[in-house]
């Protein structure tokens, strides 16, 4: 039953052929049987989930449906680790994130905390201090990241659906590499309150699901203005499922020439080109466009994201919670050893980088300049969207790579997000849907579709039309 889509599980719950308890039990059984191989979960509270299942109201929008939660989102009373030693075993969430409160209000059951790169910093889950998640299609490979745990458990049928967070591609890239759907909403569409901040001006929470329909269902539940998040947009939330099953005839689909570059894996390129043909056959019109500042996106991202992270992560110092160094000599020894012991190498690297770019004498050259380039990148997109309705590209230039393959080369690792990063800098929305497989070994390939701010409905219409006319989403890892 854990292989059901959200929509199918809902139908069975509502028809009475399945009870919330039986559904929850089957997912727990699947996790217990299958997660040893995948290591997608950091923890799960079976008792709490079953208790919630017993009182679930299936008439609610997500009534009785268990959802896996990335281990960076606060679920009251549950352990929160951010896959970091600085929180592992020492921190229990004192409150529900807004998305969790909204899921509960919609009748959903938070079940299980999924693995990730430590504090969402990475593209493979290899930066998790608690263990690397395996790609269900080939367990010698990474699932992508940072929401690799969420992608892997959805793909491996160890969850119906999951929440992830996306700062530079952390929902879309692992969704692509694991063969599921991942949607990054417009910045401000979903409240960030309660998701541990990595880069506050870039982070968004979004759904990771088996189908586009499921993403629309989840997005319905978690979207909307939140008084606790000043950056959440005070805009009406449409019924995103109403965007399903729409014709896409006449839609102009932009193909940024800067995205179809050397270095894209040939099979990824072929799959993307086939997807363009497929959309054309559905009546869409491909148009070549330019996003001229693309080449600066990665550098810009790493200045802004690390600057914000260096400040966001300052609160983890063992004074009020979390890991605390033994017998410190003095306050400064306490700070230094607690953080040296608690944070992994990539987190330290980014804190140092972020501290550096904000330092007096460097601030203008790095941070201010990055903000200016960010504005240019935003303009690139708004100009492009004058000409086209959506933009199309591969989600990741390559399929899932081998565990350990890129660990020694952070720069090579940073390239995993080259097609996804600019989306967050521009604040627009994007989705990744399965668009084929490599031959040997068989690894999923993801297609990225981008739309202007607050145009998730358009994303969903295009992605759904593509998905429903192709077989890829039906394939499961064996």
């Amino acid at each position, binding site marked *: 039953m854990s292989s059901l889509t959200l929509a199918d599980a809902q139908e069975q719950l509502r028809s009475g052929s399945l009870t919330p308890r039986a559904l929850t039990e089957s997912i727990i059984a699947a996790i217990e049987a299958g997660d040893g191989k995948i290591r997608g979960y950091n923890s799960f509270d079976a008792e709490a989930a079953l208790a919630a299942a017993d009182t679930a109201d299936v008439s609610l929008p997500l009534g009785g449906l268990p959802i896996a939660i990335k281990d*960076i*989102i*606060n679920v009251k009373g549950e352990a*929160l680790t*951010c896959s970091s030693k600085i*929180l592992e075993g020492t*921190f229990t969430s*004192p*409150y529900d*994130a807004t998305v969790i409160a909204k899921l509960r209000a919609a009748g959903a059951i938070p079940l299980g905390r999924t693995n990730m790169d430590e504090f969402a910093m990475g593209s493979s889950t290899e930066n998790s201090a608690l263990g690397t998640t395996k790609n269900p299609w080939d367990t010698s490979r990474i699932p992508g990241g940072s929401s690799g745990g969420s992608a892997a458990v959805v793909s491996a049928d160890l969850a119906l659906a999951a929440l992830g967070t996306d700062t530079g591609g952390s929902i879309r890239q692992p969704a692509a590499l694991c063969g599921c759907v991942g949607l990054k909403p417009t910045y401000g569409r979903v409240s*960030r*309150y*309660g*998701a*541990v*901040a990595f*880069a*506050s*001006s870039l982070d968004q929470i979004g759904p990771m699901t088996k189908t586009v329909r499921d993403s629309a269902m989840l997005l319905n539940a978690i979207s909307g203005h939140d*008084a*606790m*998040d*000043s*950056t959440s947009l005070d805009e009406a939330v449409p019924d995103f499922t109403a965007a399903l099953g729409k014709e896409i005839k006449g839609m102009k689909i932009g193909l940024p020439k800067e995205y179809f570059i050397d270095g894209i894996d040939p099979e990824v390129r072929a799959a993307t080109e086939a997807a363009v043909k497929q959309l054309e056959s559905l009546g869409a019109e491909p148009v070549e466009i330019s996003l001229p500042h693309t080449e600066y996106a990665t550098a810009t991202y790493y200045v802004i994201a690390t*600057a*914000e992270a*260096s*400040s966001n992560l*300052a*609160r*983890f*110092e063992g*004074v*009020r*919670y979390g890991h605390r160094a033994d017998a410190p000599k003095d*306050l400064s020894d306490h*700070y230094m050893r607690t953080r040296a012991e608690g944070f992994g190498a990539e987190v330290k690297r980014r804190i140092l980088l972020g*501290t550096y770019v*904000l*330092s*007096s004498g460097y*601030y203008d050259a790095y*941070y201010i300049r990055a903000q200016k380039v960010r504005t240019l990148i935003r303009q690139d997109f708004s100009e492009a969207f004058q000409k086209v309705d959506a933009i199309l590209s591969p989600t990741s230039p390559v399929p899932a790579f081998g565990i350990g393959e890129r660990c020694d080369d952070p720069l090579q690792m940073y390239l995993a997000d080259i097609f996804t990063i600019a989306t967050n800098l521009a604040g627009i929305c994007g989705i990744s849907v399965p668009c084929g497989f490599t031959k040997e070994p068989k690894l999923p390939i993801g297609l990225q579709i981008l739309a202007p701010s607050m145009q998730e409905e358009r994303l969903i219409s295009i992605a759904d039309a593509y998905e429903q006319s192709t077989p890829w989403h039906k394939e499961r890892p064996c």
Partner: protein
Amino acid sequence: MPASDYIVTIGLEVHAQLTTQSKMYCGCKVGYGAPPNSQTCPVCLGMPGAMPTLNEAAIEKTVLTGLMLGCENPEISKWDRKNYFYPDMPKNYQLTQFDLPLCEHGSVPLYDHCYPKDVQKDIPRPGYAVKLTRIHLEEDVGKSTHHEKNTTIDFNRAGTPLMEIVSDPDIRTGEEAFAYLNSLRQILIAGGVSDADMEKGQMRCDVNISLRKTEEEPLGAKIELKNLNSPAAVRRAIHYEIDRQSTELDAGTPQVQCTRRWDDDLGESTVMRSKEDAHDYRYFPEPDLLPIRTAPIVEAMKKLVPELPHEKSQRFVTDFGVTEYDASVLSSDKHLATYFEQAATGAKNTKLVANWVLNDLLSALKESFTEIQDSTQVPAENLRALVDLIESGKISGKQAKNDVFPAMLETGKTAGDIVKEKGLEQVSDTGALEAFCDQVIQENEAIAADVRSGNEKAANALVGRVMKLSKGQANPKVVIGILLEKLK
């Protein structure tokens, strides 16, 4: 060269706690004396994932302060993070305002009566207003308590709104700094934005001070003074610092920028940290809060700008004819001013009302350790009635002081009731008084003759006797009139 030959330049950074119900970036209550860490939430404890929201009331009070002090407002105001590690500061950054504060420029008028008493007669820059650089809004930190083996932290205060008022280096003496703090306090209280009591920590002040020999020279090394807990301490610390720096400069020791901690008991300051220890705060815009447009807030707050102490004072002089000094004292405290105005409005003798408020009432309140707004025994209209009784000759000033007013304080009754109860009403009924006068003239022929021959002063002796006959209830003014008439 003597200290007085150096040009002293002083700037003040004042932190004032705002009188808001809730904290700056969360909904927790602001208040003191609650059990440690009981007034906290994920936001003000810096829990993972918690985000700040803006306290509109705090923004409004800061903008109102700016309006009272004649500030300008940048079109857009925003918040920034000031990054440094400090155990009392949960996020390890302070959410403050860096380059776009809510208010800029403006000035604080130095009121004469706000100078130390001993220099009020000799104010070097009378009527001067100290220019301001800016006013911004930030958050307070928690409070550490160091025990023998460990340290505990109470975060109840963490996140309390703090308004920082930064002056230009536009102050020259400790006395001006003293007057600045007191004048500012009166204005903040008038606007209802802060209680601003330095001794209670509601207002805190850091002093920047530098010395140089001539106006042509650039400013000398900036020395920052901390731990100043009253305007008097600020004055003392500045005197000490001017002496210390000028002595060292005379001896050829150049000053180096540093922060010094003032010890008011010892009356001296010691180096706290040198310039090398200065933090790089790595300010950057707070991504969790949106910038705000100031114009609508300024517009809304304009209606709430109160009459300021110096404006009130001027009005008291014009409307009630009190002296400039009395007016400035009466308007120095919002509650005192309200009381006086209520008592004086419609009074027969407004100057006499001022005297009664400033002398009898204030010293009685002082004796009973009561604030004027908390005192209920003598409402303003009762004091007005008392003064009216004196003015109309119904009772004497002496009776009012010795008998009526103490009884009013004690019982809360009106002056009229007390006069009746005690039978104190002066006899002005000329029929009764004429009889007394006739009797006294008969019994004191010699004095009467003296008066008749032109010595009017001698009549006073007769008045005394009439008063005695009337058991003190005769109105002496009426009595003397009758006597002089009879002895013409």
